[in-house]
């Protein structure tokens, strides 16, 4: 039997992949699954669903959930609108421009999220750089409120999450065979028709993956909404943190976390379904 020389003898046969996967699995079980179970137990402590009842009946809390989903949806939509052209640029540009583009895209990744958020506070503040430019150019006469409101949160979150949208789309675009577009053109399609009928559908898996990623990350976002929202924009993660830190309401915070987890899983499921139908 020919075997590649690099194969480690221990990993021969069926149990090989299992062995390799075991360590990370244990790691995940201890550090993720156990805490989640602990959280679940905490939320139903005393054998009562009171915490959940409070979460779904209190108008304030429902409002927070609604706000969170709204912000996550807008962030996802804006990211998608920005990411698609960026990904297209990266997929079609010359190698030098691809490198420059990737560096700009990765730069935020390598910077602490706190630093980035504070940088946005400087830019977006009442006397911040952006307002000064807008006034100097005469677009507005009064400073625009860009900080400590939903706008600020949206700008900050889109900035942080954009790469998560760009990369899946970019890689989907790289996989599209250029001949398909030439073929469509040769068969009589205009530039727009080539895009709508061939390129876009073929990059939809990337769009779906990016959308799922950004939406789910948005739902649980904490630092950016906490700082750029200035306490005026409350997303679920901020609410949970308040419950634990300020009110020591561990049970209620756990119930909110579980609800967030369920909502996230449902969102993932829904997106998956849409993705399946597209590529069926």
């Amino acid at each position: 039997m020919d075997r590649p020389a690099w194969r480690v003898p221990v990993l021969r046969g069926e149990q090989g992949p299992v062995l390799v996967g075991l360590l990370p699995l244990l790691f995940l079980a201890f550090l993720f699954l156990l805490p989640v179970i602990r959280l679940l137990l905490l939320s139903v402590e005393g054998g009562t669903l009171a915490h959940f009842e409070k979460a779904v009946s209190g108008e304030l809390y429902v409002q927070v959930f609604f706000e969170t989903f709204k912000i996550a949806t807008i962030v996802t939509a804006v990211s998608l609108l920005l990411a698609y052209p960026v990904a297209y640029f990266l997929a079609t540009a010359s190698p030098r421009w691809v490198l420059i583009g990737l560096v700009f895209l990765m730069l935020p990744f390598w910077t602490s999220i706190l630093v980035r958020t504070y940088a946005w506070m400087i830019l977006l503040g009442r006397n911040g750089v952006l307002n000064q430019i807008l006034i100097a150019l005469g677009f507005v006469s009064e400073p625009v409120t860009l900080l400590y409101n939903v706008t600020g949160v949206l700008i900050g979150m889109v900035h942080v999450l954009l790469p998560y949208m760009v990369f899946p789309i970019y890689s989907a675009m790289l996989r599209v065979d250029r001949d398909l577009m030439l073929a469509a053109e040769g068969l009589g399609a205009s530039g727009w028709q080539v895009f709508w009928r061939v390129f876009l559908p073929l990059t939809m898996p990337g769009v779906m993956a990016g959308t799922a990623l950004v939406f789910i990350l948005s739902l649980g976002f904490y630092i950016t909404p906490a700082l750029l929202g200035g306490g005026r924009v409350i997303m679920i993660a901020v609410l949970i943190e308040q419950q634990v830190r300020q009110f020591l309401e561990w049970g209620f915070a756990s119930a909110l976390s579980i609800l967030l987890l369920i909502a996230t899983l449902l969102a993932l499921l829904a997106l998956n379904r849409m993705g399946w139908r597209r590529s069926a």
Partner: protein
Amino acid sequence: MSNGTSAAAARISGRCGGSEAPHPDGRVQASPVPSLLSLTAIAKSYGSVIALAGIDLRVPDGEIVTILGPSGSGKTTLLKIVAGFELPDAGRVELAGDDITYVTPASRGIGMVFQNYALFPHMRVAENIAFPLEMRRLARAETQERVTSALALVGLAGYEARYPRQLSGGQQQRVALARAIVFEPRLLLLDEPFGALDRKLREQMQLEVKRLQRQLGITALFVTHDQEEALVLSDRIAVMNGGLIEQIGAPAEVYSRPSNRFVADFIGESNIYRGKVTSASGQVLRVALSTGQTLVARGATPRPVGAEVGLVLRPEAPSELLDGDTVENVTSGVIKDVVYVGDAIKYAIQLDAGGQMVVRWPFRQNLRPHNVGESLRIGWPGDLLHVVDWS
């Protein structure tokens, strides 16, 4: 539309101009009547690399013309220019008399089968074939009707709802073909479409394409590096090398009367011997080889005494001479190698005068094949020895 009449005219004159008198040297002259596709002085370079160095090519209506050449000869670039995917640096592309050099691919109305088929993976077979019709805003009912008949034409009726990835290579090829002809293009381009198929399927598809082409009366320009394929499929072969067309002609003509050493070498197998013309009287040349032997060639273009020429001898041209037989050119040698190639046997012969010769004789069951080490006398008449310029 102004091109309607000229297109019709081109078609009619194309038919009338079908009979072309062979030139004295055996080469068919380019037809003086307008062709369906006509390329004039097409040039293209990428940076300092010259891909096409002035291509002239006419594709008569209803014919299959093959561009045959090794990779890097510029044949794919030429096809892309015809399709409109690339613009030439210079020259003119005319389709049915209209200058389409700078017309977008979408408005050219040319069908193309890509090397890897380029079927849309997210569309079903029927959607793939309907695509060009939808782009032309055909009515739904007619689209459906045409898709059905195109699928029937390529023998894939009932495959409408499949996705390309659920089809075999040969079936994908048929879908690509159906998609390329369903909108009744004036010209069909095929870019090495059989490369990915196994031999048997390839031969079957070649015959099928030829049948379809005849049945639909479509004109086809076909690119390949496979000389056997070119010989099977084409009405006319254009042999390309280094961005130039070396020779254009019917398969038999290109095979038996290659215009230069490259063509002789590229198409089929050849024994090529270098020599100098020692006497020339009309079309009869005597050529002295470096081995000292003198051979006679008939039917060649007149060449001056002293000219350096290559003598091309196809492996099936010579025959074995029995005692007492005599013919214009005779040589002898010892068999060095015997290779069975199915219906024939190839012998590599070390010539007594020096040099080698490969001969290929049909295999007959009642005839004992020769063995390695046997001596043979071989001969062939002068008109089977083809002369090309050495340089």
